[in-house]
């Protein structure tokens, strides 16, 4: 009898514990939405109050290191932890340490926004519009006025980022005006430019046929296919499929952008040169020079493996492809061959239009525990010292300044392992295109050559970049849907079994876009363009 009772007791206690833990778990979860944020806000208020009393927080002077949480909205981000000489130096200078979280996929940040579960700082490129919202982030102008009046940002950058409510919530890095680029001849641009590298040894065996045009390149691919049937003539990174070829066709636009002609703006796929480009890509497939699977690669490592394992003749990726591939081949010992870059301009039509407004920006969210320290932290990164420290590394240890106007680097910036291991470049939460462009200037590197060629054919039209749809607007919905449709339909054109089929698929893609409201979108784009284009004059 006694044992039965004690069993019952035990069962009752267990059940009670389960019940309590269940309820308390829910309490926590549910609380996040309302209560949590309230108490956070309260804490924030307290903190801010304290700051006012204790004085400047951003200074390293008081010796106390503050930790801020940072979410990086880029699953591919190569640095995932606040460590290494650059990070340490920044902490030393600012008294700020970052607790970094890198996104697991591109849906994580939208989910965090929805649940109100935001960190102190967010670094993003795809959600700049969404976070530029007074409900989610602090306006920089407000914080600068309050805590960092000597943080000066030039007018163009402010104008680019000013939203309809008159505030700006971030300033993107990697941006430089045409003037700034002109004045700094050693600033030659970033790795984010397309390039194709080819196997030097195979070229030699083929008798070094000249490659001075796209036709020449296609001919060489044909020779490779014939002589090395087991080899893939051209492998492409999944994110760098079209850019190089679009550049050669001089389309002035990538597949989801706007181009301008005679003062009128239109959507990329209606560019007259686009059809030629699609026919060209389709011919690469029909001739067996590219794999169908290339358009379904699940990650961006597979193409590198093809290239470095000697299974591919040409590798389409960025201007740094040859340098990085060669380093990888050497360090893994997988072969003795080397890659060399094709010229950035393979035809007289080749043209690059830079409509960029920069790459990514940092937001100080409304959940930030210490906005004052945060804006001062960014102010330091925006200083000349801060920009050089983040971009080139620690002065003296990693580089020395050359009075010609560029750093003399003591390492190879294409050596991804070294750069990422030391945290060079990637903490560019605030920086600019001029400083970043100098990181590429290493006399003798193939990338340097490729970038100088690219710079020579670049035309700047940042005013086109200002055509940006606002989150939750009707235009945004139409644009996203059309972009997504193009992403699906373009593959059907590339992989068509005949040229007629490719052309038919192209026409049906354009028609689809028109049915989805393309004209309305284009009208809106033109109206926006008219309103904003004078910003750069």
């Amino acid at each position, binding site marked *: 009898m006694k044992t039965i009772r004690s069993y*019952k007791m035990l*069962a*009752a206690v267990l*059940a009670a514990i*389960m*019940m309590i833990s*269940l*309820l308390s778990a*829910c309490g926590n979860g549910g609380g996040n*939405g*309302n209560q949590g944020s309230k108490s956070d806000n309260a804490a924030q208020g307290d903190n801010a109050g304290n700051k006012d009393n204790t004085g400047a927080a951003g200074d390293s002077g008081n010796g106390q290191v503050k930790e801020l949480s940072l979410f990086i909205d880029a699953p591919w981000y190569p640095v995932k932890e606040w460590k290494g000489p650059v990070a340490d130096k920044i902490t030393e200078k600012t008294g700020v340490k970052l607790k970094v979280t890198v996104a697991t996929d*591109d*849906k994580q940040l*939208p*989910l965090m*926004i*929805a649940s*109100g579960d935001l960190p102190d700082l967010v670094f993003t490129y795809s959600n700049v519009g*969404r976070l530029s*919202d007074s*409900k*989610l982030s602090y306006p920089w102008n407000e914080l600068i006025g309050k805590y960092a009046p000597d943080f000066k940002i030039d007018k163009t950058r402010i104008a680019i980022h000013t939203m309809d409510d008159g505030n700006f919530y971030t300033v993107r890095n990697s941006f430089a005006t045409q003037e700034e680029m002109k004045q700094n001849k050693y600033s030659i641009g970033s790795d984010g430019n397309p390039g194709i590298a080819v196997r030097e040894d195979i070229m030699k065996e083929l008798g070094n046929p000249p490659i001075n045009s796209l036709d020449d390149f296609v001919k060489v691919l044909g020779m490779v296919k014939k002589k090395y049937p087991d080899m*893939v003539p051209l492998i492409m990174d999944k994110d760098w499929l079209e850019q190089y070829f679009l550049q050669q066709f001089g389309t002035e636009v990538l597949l989801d952008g706007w181009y301008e002609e005679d003062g009128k703006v239109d959507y990329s796929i209606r560019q007259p040169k686009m059809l030629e480009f699609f026919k060209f890509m389709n011919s690469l497939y029909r001739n067996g020079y590219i*794999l*169908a*699977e290339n*358009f*379904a690669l*699940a990650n961006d490592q597979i193409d590198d493996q093809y290239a470095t394992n000697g299974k591919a003749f040409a590798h389409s990726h960025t201007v740094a492809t040859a340098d990085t591939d060669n380093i990888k081949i050497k360090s893994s010992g997988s072969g003795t061959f080397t890659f060399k870059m094709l010229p950035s301009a393979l035809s007289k039509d080749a043209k690059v239009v830079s409509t960029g407004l920069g790459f990514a920006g940092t937001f100080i969210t409304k959940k930030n525990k210490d906005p004052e320290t945060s804006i001062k932290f960014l102010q330091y990164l925006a200083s000349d010292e801060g920009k050089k420290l983040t971009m080139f590394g620690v002065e003296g240890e990693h580089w020395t300044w050359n009075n010609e106007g560029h750093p003399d680097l003591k390492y190879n910036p294409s050596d991804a392992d070294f750069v990422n291991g030391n945290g060079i470049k990637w903490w560019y939460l605030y920086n600019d295109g001029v400083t970043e462009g100098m990181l590429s200037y290493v006399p003798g590197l193939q990338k340097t050559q490729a970038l100088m060629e690219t710079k020579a054919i670049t035309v700047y039209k940042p005013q086109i970049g200002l055509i940006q749809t606002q*989150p*939750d607007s009707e235009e945004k*919905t139409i644009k*996203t*849907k059309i972009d*997504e*449709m193009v*992403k*699906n339909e*373009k*593959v*059907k054109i590339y*992989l068509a079994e005949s040229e007629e089929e490719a052309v038919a698929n192209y026409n049906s893609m354009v028609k*689809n876009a028109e*049915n*989805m409201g393309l004209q309305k979108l284009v009208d809106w784009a033109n109206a926006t363009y008219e309103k904003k284009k004078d910003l750069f004059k």
Partner: protein
Amino acid sequence: MQLETQPISPQADSGRLWKRFKKQKMLHLFVGLGMVFLVIFSYTPMFGILMAFKDYSISSGIKGIFTSDWVGLKYFDEFVHDYQFGKIVRNTLVLSFLKVIFAFPAPILLAIMLNEVKNMAFKRFVQTVSYLPHFISWVVVVGVSYAFLSADVGVVNKALMSLGFIREPLNILTGPNYFWGLAVGSAIWKEMGWWTIIFLAAITGINPALYEAAEIDGAGRLARIRHITLPGMKGTIVVVLVLTIGSILGGGLVGSNFEQAYLFGNSINNPTSEIVQTYAFKVGLRDGRFSYAAAIDLIQSVISVVLIFSSNFIAKRMSGSSLF
């Protein structure tokens, strides 16, 4: 602890009811826990359905679900007029029905076949090997499938080519024509052994005397399967079938429509691999259009509810056994 099973008589006063309740308080406690769980995690979040009829923006947080403007059926209308609507609905239905047709009978067949195997060691071995894949997650399965099925490096293609069955490699992972077969095939491979356990248990419950009697009466092996094993499994089969049809749009018994379409799907096989769930996931989370995604999913839920009620009704009519 004994269960009180007799029905409450109309005269039962509240005292007796309380007494009964007290007697069963442990059971009620356990049931109560389950109910609390259901209410909190399944019923409470349902208020989110409101989003489907409102102009909701994620920056307005949970409160925004109640405060944003009503837009009626705008998002339902938008989905129905989407250029991919027909394709997406077709893919969802075809994939689901193919899975019921092929994946539902598979574990039943395997269970019957295993039951006929007399060598215990072999039976155990087959059972273990066939249910192990159940524990591998789809992400891993899809990753590994690349090594087996890829057109360029896949072992299967290499083998078929060297044996002379095909001259060009098959684009199993990327070709739109292969996706449904790939999805159904891999789902059967992964889940068949797992579900076999249930059916084997049902067979174990059949009285061996029936088999002995049938054998004496001269019934062969096939006749015994047809007249004893299958009727003996009928109850289980019907219950599993009803559950399957209820979750048919998620892939039924073997489930995983979403995982497969999301992981095996790519821009080449998109014409056959895009289904309602992946589409809702993409527009909902990637584009942050929660209202639209909620509307899409609501349509699917309604279809599912209709299917489960009708399949239950039919099962009741045809076999007398049903879920509720």
